[in-house]
């Protein structure tokens, strides 16, 4: 019995590490002068293949999901269940004419989609997609991620400014205002994790969470500060990636497509790709910080390879993003800003305080419950107070129209 168990765990271990072992084998079996190239390619090519593939899958899943939410079928013509739709879309976008406005700044207009896609890809360098599966072992990985994340703003503004179109510029302005505003709560809510884990390395943060008490994991989302932090992080992430309900920069019904209104054909597809890559990356970071990264949700489920767990969690996150998009209408610009500065920012700061309290309260048997209660109160009381305060200013009443009358 024990022998079988050992064999099973050994096998699971080998399947878990199959990509790492293959990588190692391939590098050691190439001649010395080419090793650097092979090792780089073996890291870059899978990232360049897997995540755009996931993008293709997500586009069709999103359209089908939104369709079902609206009691429609969604795409079901190309291939079985419409799953080959992305191929048709790709062919279409490749064969479209690439229109560049005559008054556009040619170089910047050309560079913007390239910059946005390359920065979106760079974020994956520090994302652990499985045990020992990370492109670059960076001690300050989180810092790198946020720095690269901010670089997309540059590309967005390049696109908006160089197009010389009012809608583009408006979209870009909105995007910059929104991204800068939401970057603050995004980073502040992840600081709580950094405080508890004591490291900026995504790998180590995951390792911290990949421990089990009994069968239950030590994911940060199962603590009061982690839960609040996770919600804050994902809300800010949705705004950061211009995702509905924070899709003001694109706002089809208001400013057509925002900053990429003057892009057509494959450049448009690149913007689309970059947007989804950012969503995956920031969801991946949310998983890494709060949902235990590649670790299994229950200790005995660890036989399933770690990379499957990561991608399963990622798909769930994508599903939630689609669900939220199908539910909520777009915010107005002032609502967006109010929400960022009057609610998200104070809550993120309170969350940091809560994480500090959690860290320094003693961990005895009695204190486990007490610590929980104290920290939950630290989150819930300000939440209710803030919600009340925000709602007080808003009185919903019927608008009285006054017409120009004589006398």
């Amino acid at each position, binding site marked *: 019995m024990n022998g079988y168990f050992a064999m099973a765990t050994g096998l699971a271990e080998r399947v878990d590490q199959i990509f790492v072992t293959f990588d190692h084998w391939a590098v050691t079996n190439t001649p010395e002068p080419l090793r650097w190239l092979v090792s780089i390619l073996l890291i870059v090519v899978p990232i360049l293949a897997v995540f755009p593939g996931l993008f293709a899958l997500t586009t069709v899943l999103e359209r089908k999901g939104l369709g079902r939410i*609206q009691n429609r079928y969604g795409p079901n013509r190309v291939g079985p269940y419409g799953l080959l739709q992305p191929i048709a879309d790709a062919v279409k976008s490749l064969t479209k004419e690439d229109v560049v406005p005559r008054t556009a700044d040619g170089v910047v207009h050309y560079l913007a989609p390239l910059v946005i896609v390359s920065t979106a890809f760079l974020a994956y360098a520090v994302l652990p997609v499985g045990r020992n599966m990370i492109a670059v072992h960076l001690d300050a990985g989180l810092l790198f991620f946020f720095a690269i994340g901010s670089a997309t703003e540059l590309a967005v503004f390049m696109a908006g400014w160089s197009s010389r179109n009012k809608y583009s510029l408006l979209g870009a302005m909105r995007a910059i205002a929104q991204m800068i505003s939401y970057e603050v709560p995004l980073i502040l809510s992840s600081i709580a994790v950094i405080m508890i884990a004591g490291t900026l390395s995504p790998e180590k943060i995951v390792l911290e969470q990949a421990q089990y008490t009994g069968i239950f994991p030590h994911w940060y989302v199962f603590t009061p500060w982690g839960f609040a932090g996770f919600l804050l992080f994902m809300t800010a992430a949705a705004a950061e990636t211009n995702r509905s309900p924070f899709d003001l920069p694109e706002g089809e019904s208001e400013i057509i497509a925002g900053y990429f209104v003057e892009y057509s054909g494959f450049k448009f597809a690149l913007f689309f790709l970059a947007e989804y890559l950012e969503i995956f990356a920031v969801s991946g970071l949310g998983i890494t910080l709060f949902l235990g990264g590649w670790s299994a949700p229950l200790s005995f489920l660890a036989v399933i390879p770690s990379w499957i767990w990561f991608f399963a969690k990622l798909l769930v996150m994508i599903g939630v993003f689609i*669900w939220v998009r199908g539910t909520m209408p777009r915010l107005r610009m002032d609502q967006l800003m109010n929400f960022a500065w009057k609610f998200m920012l104070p809550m993120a700061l309170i969350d940091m305080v809560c994480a500090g309290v959690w860290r320094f309260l003693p961990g005895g048997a009695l204190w486990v419950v007490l610590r929980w209660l104290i920290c939950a109160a630290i989150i819930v009381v300000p939440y209710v107070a803030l919600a009340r305060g925000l709602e007080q200013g808003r009185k919903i009443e019927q608008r009285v129209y006054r017409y120009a009358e004589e006398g």
Partner: protein
Amino acid sequence: MLGEGIVKGLIETARNFVGSYVDKDRLVTVQYPEERNPLPEAARNFPFLLYDGDDPEAGLRCVSCHICEKECPPRCIHIEKSTDKKPDFVGKQQFYPKVFNIDVSVCMSCQICVEVCPFDAIRMDKEFELSTDDRFGGLLWTKKELAKPNEYYQKIHPMEAAETDARRAEELKQTQAKAAAAAAAAAAKAAEAAKAAEAAKAGNGAAGKEPSA
């Protein structure tokens, strides 16, 4: 409470999402090429020419009177009259169209040609899947493509067809009755004439006899 409405909305959309898989009635989309809704009786698209019997040439109702051609607002009908005549359904000798073309890329489906036709020869079709890769020849329909049997008309517009058929049967009956009456009158006249002739003959005979006697 902040967030309450969001949760409510999420539950609602989730109910719709799951419901669309469970309850088929929710999905109102008609999957067009495979499924299709029946067209209403009054649906119309482009005109066609009616013929009686089996032969589209012999049974064609059109007598080439050019009324529809003149009334057609976008002028999409082109008719060339024949030089000889053929009998129509009541047996009367009528011209027929040597050429009858409708350019459906010009036709605006107004049904005026149908309203003005005194011979019930042109009617509106329901066929709407007419795409072709030849935008000139493929959309210029000749007599051959336009001619369709009366049974087809009865199938696509049953109420209208019943009315037309009843009227035409009545007309045929009247014509036949008239013809019969005319024939009877002619026969009576002939008989009378014959009688008169006979009488005259008899008179003549007597008269002829008289001098000879």
